[in-house]
């Protein structure tokens, strides 16, 4: 490879990274800005916007709601996705292929359509909107992540291992908990974290399916439309911390290539 194409490569990557990360970095910087202005120059570091977030009832309620939703969605989605992946890894029948396709539909359908379809459904069966109705939508959009991550691990897993454990005298449950599950444990935890991150960040479906108690991004959306309030930067940074910490832990658990399939 020539030094020139190497130089061009680095320049392209650097410009792309600035483009991708500039908005994120700015939000974090402005969250520590001393004044309410969101333009340059920065005026001294300050944590006043964070203090405001933690004294504002609507933010606190939003944080609580998002926490409850994300953890529940994490558990349910990981459970459903993992069990389905096991079934898919074992058999290649038509009905399993159908389920695999169904599970991936929410990933290729705009959140808007899923949101209004769920809203129509809840309306038709007279279900009042609440955090539960948000959770259902979030399980739908996060299932594809679990199926992809756990499924990718299982596709590299030799089913003979389970049989070997059984032949050596393990019961079905023992074989599962002592042999099979440990092999996919890292992928299952990684899926859980990605699901939590995606749920904490999700706003499009939540906007249509949320009741009186709103999740944090919905609260932010409500404020965005009214005014420019710098405490939005602080609360956005808090969401970022959750999603980024999850992403970094995921990195320790699985290779990024497991997602690039």
């Amino acid at each position, binding site marked *: 490879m020539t030094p020139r*194409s*190497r130089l061009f*490569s*680095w320049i*392209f*990557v650097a410009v*792309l990274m600035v*483009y*991708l*990360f*500039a*908005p*994120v970095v*700015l*939000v974090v910087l*402005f969250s520590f800005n001393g004044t309410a202005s969101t333009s*340059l120059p920065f005026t001294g570091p300050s944590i006043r916007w964070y203090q405001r977030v933690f004294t504002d009832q609507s933010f606190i309620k939003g944080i609580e709601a998002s926490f409850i939703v994300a953890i529940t969605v994490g558990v349910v989605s990981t*459970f459903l*996705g993992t*069990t*389905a992946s*096991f*079934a898919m890894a*074992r*058999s290649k*029948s*038509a*009905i*399993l292929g159908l*389920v695999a396709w*169904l599970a991936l539909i929410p990933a*290729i*359908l*705009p*959140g*808007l*359509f899923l949101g*209004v*379809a*769920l809203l*129509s*459904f809840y309306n*038709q069966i007279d279900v009042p909107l609440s955090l539960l109705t948000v959770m259902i939508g979030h399980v739908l959009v996060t*299932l594809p992540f679990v199926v992809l991550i756990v499924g990718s691990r299982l596709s590299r897993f030799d089913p003979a291992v389970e049989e070997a454990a059984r032949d050596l005298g393990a019961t079905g449950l023992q074989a599962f908990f002592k042999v099979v599950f440990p092999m996919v444990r890292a992928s299952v935890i990684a899926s859980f974290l990605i699901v939590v991150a995606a749920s904490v*960040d999700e*706003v*499009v479906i939540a906007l*249509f399916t949320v009741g009186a108690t709103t999740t944090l991004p919905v609260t*932010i*959306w409500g404020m*965005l439309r009214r005014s420019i309030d710098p405490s939005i930067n602080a609360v956005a940074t808090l*969401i*970022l911390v959750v*999603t980024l910490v999850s*992403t970094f832990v*995921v990195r320790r658990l699985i290779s*990024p*290539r497991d*997602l*690039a399939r």
Partner: protein
Amino acid sequence: VIPVSSDSRGGGATVERPGPLTAATLWASRFFRTGTARERWVTIFELAPTLIFLTVFLVIPLGVFFVYSFWTTSVFQLVPDWTLENYITAITDANYQSLFRNTLTIALTVGVCTVVVAYTFAHIIRFHLKQHQETLLFLMLVSLFSGYLVRIYSWRTILGDQGIINDLLQRIGLIDEPLSFLLFSRVAVVLVLVNYLVPLAVLPIYASLQNVNEDEIEASRDLGAGAATTFWRVTLPLVRNGLFFSFAITVILAAGDYLTPQLVGGINGLMIGTVIADNFGATFNWALGAASSFVTTGCIVIILIVAYFGFRRVLR
């Protein structure tokens, strides 16, 4: 010879009078072609929760949504009228037509830009910066999970009249007046959507680039093909599926987005998603909103079919 009993290995057929459980297992075995009876039941139990969940909360809601597109809305009530009126309005109304044109133009622009940027990045990390590919791919994942709403909102501080870009350009004296086309315009919508979709588009392209062998590229070069010919006739056709998948998902998600046009689009950057969202909110015309969603979906499907054959024709 010990006779093989029904529950040890596979064939429940050796049982003379099948009990209900065996009959059910036999029936299930036609759908789940797997080994033992126990395995079949395990498969069914593992699959049932997800299958039920997806049927109740995905298939049925989409069905209700489709049915609503044939109803009418009057005085904040849905009336089961069974009419094509909503589709006729969505297709023939001049406002809706210009919205669809705007939406599809933006979605296609976003699709092309995103795929070009994502491919260039994937190509670079696969062939030119190989020793850093894990780290760079990871940075894409970080970006993918670094806040959707937050990023759209942040672009307003970058592109606005008092934003970073205008501020910088004025400071170094390149411009006197702020460039007002940066925010609340189509440019802004495209810039923000590409920003959000590039990381997503990189993943399938990178995955298909894994299948491209450097030997194949060398072979092509050895046989006398130039760098450009090799690229167009060997490398790109090998990643065609990844490219198409990325293009498809980018166009779909861009066409269905509604927060981006609402936050940074202004009047010129208005897209159908914003109007659909309004139909399900303030203006309360669910039936028309549902019909518009299906017209949008129809347009995207047609575009993607054309694009698919285009990809096959050009890249082979």
